[in-house]
């Protein structure tokens, strides 16, 4: 019975367990694999990432075509293999989960 009262008091005084997402966002946890970003200025468009990607989520074009790097976030499994093999370290994984609603993301 006393234990029960303790529980009630605890429930009254403690903060709610629920995280109030999306009204209040948690601080991103460093090192999390949230979404993939590229620095297009550093990239040499060698295509190694797209060769290594296990899901063919990446596509790279280079000369004679114009250089480009394309990500399909609806195929990407965020494994980070591309980040490991990139010779210029221009790819990185950011801790927040990707928001692909705007045309300029990620």
């Amino acid at each position: 019975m006393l234990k029960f009262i303790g529980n009630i008091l605890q429930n009254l005084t403690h903060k709610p367990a629920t995280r109030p997402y999306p009204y209040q966002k948690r601080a991103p946890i460093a090192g999390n694999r949230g979404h993939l970003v590229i620095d297009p200025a550093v990239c040499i468009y060698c295509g190694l990432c797209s060769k290594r990607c296990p899901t063919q989520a990446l596509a790279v074009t280079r000369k004679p075509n114009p250089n480009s790097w394309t990500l399909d976030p609806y195929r990407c499994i965020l494994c980070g293999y591309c980040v490991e093999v990139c010779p210029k370290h221009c790819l990185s994984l950011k801790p927040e989960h990707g928001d692909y609603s705007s045309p300029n993301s990620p």
Partner: protein
Amino acid sequence: MKVLAKSPWAVHFNCNSCNGCDIEFLACLTPLYDLERFGVLHIGNPKHADILVVTGSVNHRNARVLENVYIQVPDPKVVVAIGVCTSTGGIFADCYNILGGIDKVIPVDVFVPGCPPRPEAIIDGMVQSLAKLEAKRAGKKVEPARKPTFTFRPPAEAEAPVTPSPAGSAGRGGKE
């Protein structure tokens, strides 16, 4: 975000998932994330539901089951596809028994990318789907969800550094 007048119920269908997305969707219903804050209640009967939450890609045996569940959900309804398998087949797209994303079988209103998506991403997707459901209830026409790809070019070569892909390019990342 607007508070919704009605409480939409969700039915969850595991199509061909590895359980990663399933347990993350269930985690959304538990105290820490608590989707019931938005009135979303997880129920077992498709006839009671407004939202169909699907995880996993479509294979030969469950395509018909998915279609049946979809038909049983009364109108207006929205479909939320959780995870990359559900969107395109993901890492399993090349398997012999995989047909691809669920949009091959039923129309999809919201795609949530990620493998598996975090509960925060699923909540974002659910909130988006609530807005679409409201629009459908009001009799507005709602476009099916797109799966855009994102192309980047070296800044020196492109006037516009970022070119959004054409609408609805559901293709396979343009790998030729």
